[in-house]
């Protein structure tokens, strides 16, 4: 951990940081969409490693696990929707690359200038013995409102995702007022109401 700011941990954090940015750049450079997905996964895993060095064990593990699954799903979507999933021929699908590069580099420069010119406050307090316990107590105590809102948001996401991804719902089958006696199915024999 970085508690004692030892040299090798700082070096590890620096290497992981460089790796995360390099993987992020690789996402938009490689031809293969599958490779791009796994480059993004590499970026997330590097960030999870940095969080681990910061003693944020729970957040690091959640990031690593969640992103591994998420990128596995994303790889499937890439193969489904992209023309060149295996990267067998070079191709680019971009619009306004110069303007986008200017905006991206501008955001980086503005943020970096701010980071290196701000007079950062001194660190207050010591690291807790268990950062996961600190987060758990906050979730169940002082910051419960955040978790309530997050919970409602995730529930709304489940509903909205299902509604959007459903090919034919009951309104398609029984009409806008759900009054049809027989369902309007492309192949007869579907489930009745």
């Amino acid at each position, binding site marked *: 951990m970085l508690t004692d700011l030892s040299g090798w941990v700082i070096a590890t954090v620096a290497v992981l940081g460089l790796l995360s940015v390099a993987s992020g750049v690789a996402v938009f450079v490689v031809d293969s969409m599958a490779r791009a997905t796994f480059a993004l996964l590499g970026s997330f895993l590097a960030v999870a490693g940095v969080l681990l060095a910061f003693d944020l064990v729970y957040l690091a593990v959640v990031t690593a696990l969640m992103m591994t699954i998420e990128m596995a799903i994303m790889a499937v*979507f890439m193969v489904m929707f992209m023309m060149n999933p295996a990267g067998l021929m070079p191709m680019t699908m971009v619009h306004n690359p110069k303007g986008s590069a200017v905006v991206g580099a501008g955001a980086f420069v503005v943020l970096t200038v701010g980071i290196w010119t701000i007079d950062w406050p001194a660190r207050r307090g010591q690291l807790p013995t268990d950062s996961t316990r600190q987060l758990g107590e906050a979730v169940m105590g002082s910051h419960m409102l955040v978790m309530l809102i997050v919970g409602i948001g995730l529930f709304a996401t489940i509903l909205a995702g299902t509604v959007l991804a459903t090919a034919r719902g009951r309104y398609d089958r029984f009409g806008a007022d759900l009054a049809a006696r027989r369902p309007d199915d492309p192949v007869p024999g579907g489930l009745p109401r």
Partner: protein
Amino acid sequence: MTAELVLQIVLTVAAGLIGVGLFGALSQQSIVMVMMGLELVLNGVLLAGGAAWFSLAPELPDAQMLAVVALVVMAVEMAMGFAVTIAIYRARQVDMVDMATDLNG
């Protein structure tokens, strides 16, 4: 090396991730690649939250909560992004943002 210097270095890395992600989200034509750019931006926010917690106020859980919110936003963005991608492809065979410019603002 002081904690402040570590904070500045890690925040610079986070700024790099945000910059790269912004470039990707603005330049890519594929809807899924745009989502990847947005994920990189959120990755930078996650890293910045962790660094702020460690270097500024480890006694308070606020920065950890920010990181949790960033993770949740990532999950919501992916789920809704994939659902919208499927819905618009099913309705209009659109898989690139340039093919749906009539949805512009």
